């Protein structure tokens, strides 16, 4: 084990740089998926007839094997190609579903009596959304973002396959050279990242959760 420690220490600069790339990939994808998923989830609660096909479609897309999706995206103009941009697009696709689904479920779970109270006080629809529905749905929405980020950290290791960098670079190199230490040099920091994000977002959830 001390051999592995020394190995990791020796390569700390590279591990750190790749970890940084990894965090950027996941964070960018989560931010974009949130920016799309939350408004879309809200819109679905306003048009219930669309919710089934849209959620079904998002579900299906998520069932595409991730390596295949990365591959499919390479020849696509604008969003495709080799590199980080394509990887972020693929990660957004996977992050979207939990965020979309939780936003939809979280808003629908708001007590109808509270929603009617907001209407009866004379809130406009957007006031009701901003000051009542979204705050009350927030813990559920955040739980969706948390799932998306944790899953994204794992998926982003595959991004190395299309030249997007990140900790997957070490894992692929390790697999190619049958070097377990190299695989661990990528896998250990990735696992730690997933746990750290999970813990950190869990803290935020408890601190900002409106139901006390």
């Amino acid at each position, binding site marked *: 084990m001390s051999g592995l420690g020394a190995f990791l220490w020796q390569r700390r600069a590279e591990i750190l740089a790749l970890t940084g790339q990894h965090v950027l990939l996941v964070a960018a994808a989560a931010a974009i998926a949130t920016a799309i998923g939350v408004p879309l989830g809200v819109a679905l609660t306003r048009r219930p007839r669309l919710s089934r096909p849209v959620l079904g479609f998002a579900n299906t897309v998520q069932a595409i094997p991730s390596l295949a999706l990365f591959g499919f995206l390479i020849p696509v103009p604008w969003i495709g190609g080799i590199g980080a941009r394509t990887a972020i697009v693929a990660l957004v696709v996977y992050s979207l579903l939990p965020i979309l689904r939780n936003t939809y479920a979280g808003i629908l779970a708001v007590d109808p*009596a509270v929603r009617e109270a*907001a*209407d*009866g*006080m004379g809130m406009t629809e957007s006031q009701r959304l901003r000051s*009542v529905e979204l705050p009350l749905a927030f813990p559920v929405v955040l739980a969706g973002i948390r799932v998306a980020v944790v899953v994204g950290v794992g998926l982003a290791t595959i991004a190395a396959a299309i030249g997007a960098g990140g900790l997957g670079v070490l894992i692929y190199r390790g697999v190619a050279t049958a070097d377990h230490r190299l695989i661990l040099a990528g896998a250990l920091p990735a696992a730690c990242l997933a746990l750290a994000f999970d813990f950190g977002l869990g803290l935020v959830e408890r601190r900002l959760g409106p*139901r006390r």
Partner: protein
Amino acid sequence: MASSAVTPSPVLEYANVRKSFGGGAVLDSFSLAVAPGETVALVGRSGCGKTTALKLANRLLDPDAGAVRVFGGAASAQDPVALRRRIGWVIQEGGLFPHWTVRENVEAVPRLLGWPEEKRRARADELLATVGLPPAEFGARRPSGLSGGQRQRVGVARALAAGPALVLMDEPFGALDPIGRRAMQAEFLAWKARWGAAVLLVTHDLREAFRLADRVAVLERGAIRQVGVPDELRRAPADAFVRELVEDLRA
């Protein structure tokens, strides 16, 4: 204020209103007027259309036929959002915003109306004191930290915050035990003397209606069976249904 005669300019008036949801009519040929400053109780069994009648007043619902007039104009011609801000609404079980403090709940409508902060604070302090919840002690609490009775008090304070000329109350003391209920009823009479607002109060309890209201309207199967001051209903019930209600009360 108590009068069964037609009042010159009611704050709220229903004329031949019909409202149905899918199946049968919930309200049919429903007519009722509430004069300024008057308290009218709408009494009936659950499912008789009482809550539907209230929601027609603040346009949470619109009638299928007939007319609802509020503040002298057709409700249908008024912007629902603006109208609701002018009408106090006390909801069953309180209907408080669970993520807001007691003070934030009470300040809800004044904030929507854009009152300056100082005015909002002063008004919330005054109202919380009036409903027996000293603001220093209760203002920063959340609804989850209150008893059922305290929540209903906050609901009353919230409905009155912007000084509405019309207040709709839906079973406002329904979730209380008999002792708490009697205490709130006594307080209601004291508050009412201060507000001067017209009140349309929905209840299934005729005893409560007789205690609190200037006039009582008995609603059964979507239509009004009798409207009058409590004495009229006691002395001359209009039909068998009303007579039975009144006799139940004596028993």
